[in-house]
């Protein structure tokens, strides 16, 4: 399994795709084994502003974090609820994660 839950990105290749990259730190999400904790954080509710490298899992309401900004078509995985998702447009200029069954 890839270590970054958002690394399985369509068309992405290292940093040559022009995406902004992020240094991730463990922010206290203890619900997954230690080596994956930095890739998740708790959601603060509707007023919680997501960074470009963050997506809200619609199933379990955990925020999935990637080392690079998300783009439409990226695939991601939520380890706490074991759900696979794909990044799609929300129709308002933003991006959301859509569950893939």
């Amino acid at each position: 399994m890839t270590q970054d839950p958002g690394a399985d990105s369509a068309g992405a290749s290292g940093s040559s795709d022009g995406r902004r990259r992020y240094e991730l730190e463990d922010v206290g999400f203890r619900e997954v084994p230690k080596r994956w904790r930095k890739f998740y954080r708790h959601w603060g509710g509707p007023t919680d502003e997501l960074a470009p490298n963050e997506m809200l899992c619609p199933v379990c309401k955990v925020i999935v974090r990637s080392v690079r900004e998300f783009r439409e078509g990226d695939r991601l995985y939520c380890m706490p609820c074991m759900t696979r998702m794909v990044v799609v447009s929300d129709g308002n200029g933003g991006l959301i994660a859509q569950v893939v069954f």
Partner: protein
Amino acid sequence: MAEFLSQYSIQRWLEACPQGYLEDTVYGHEAGESEPETVMMDEAQREAAIRTTTQLVVGERAALAASSGLVNAAPDYASKQFLATQTLDEARHVEIFTQRMYDLGVKKDDLESTLSQFANPNLIKFAEVLLEKVEAKDFIAGVVGQNIVLEGMAFTVFEMMEAGARDYNPKFAHTLQGTIADERRHVGFGENRIGSLIKENPEKRPEIEKMQRDMTYFMLATFADSFSGNPDPIDAPAEAEGASVEWQGVNLATATPEEMEALLAGTVLGEFKTRLARIGLEYQSPSMG
């Protein structure tokens, strides 16, 4: 599908739960934590906490009966394995909330009579609708009822209670945090496993939607009973006022019971609609007449 089901191994559950977020916990909380003195010294607050915890024990007993019953109804071994881990999760929830009853001063000999005294009749009916499907070994309806409806409700209720308890009762908040982490897996299994089965068995939809409507009716009646005239419906007493108890953009310390009931019911129903739509079911609104 096979790849998806392969995630449900006992090994992964061991790494995530007992060796992960539950490591070093004692009955779900940190060692040495206790109920706040403000609760233990005030009889009204202590009884309110016992009343609230009773509903948690009753709900978790239903979840234990349902998940264990569904093991033998599951059509594949990956689902059986997952439901076996969920059965242990639910048994743990029964144990930790029962322990809270004891921590609040309920004597072991008085546990069952206390549960009978305070259990909400509508919550019992909610559970009966689900367990009827489980007893009939109806796997699809059982998982929708258990992992989408019951767990979806519990997930939201626990999050609200955890927000209310975070500052004034760390022991209870920590107990709830581990439970919420468990619920994430349970709702994930419900959606991921059932989505494809609903597509393959479209004739099941009307029966499952009726079950959802009946369970929703009794859930809303339970909320109405719990909040109506109850000054401390989420087990977060007045001492919490002024603390940071915001949930879904609302300050729980200053919200009225009616506002909290509307917030909780609105959040749970919104989640039901979204979750059911994702797995191919249409939310059925109950008649509250």
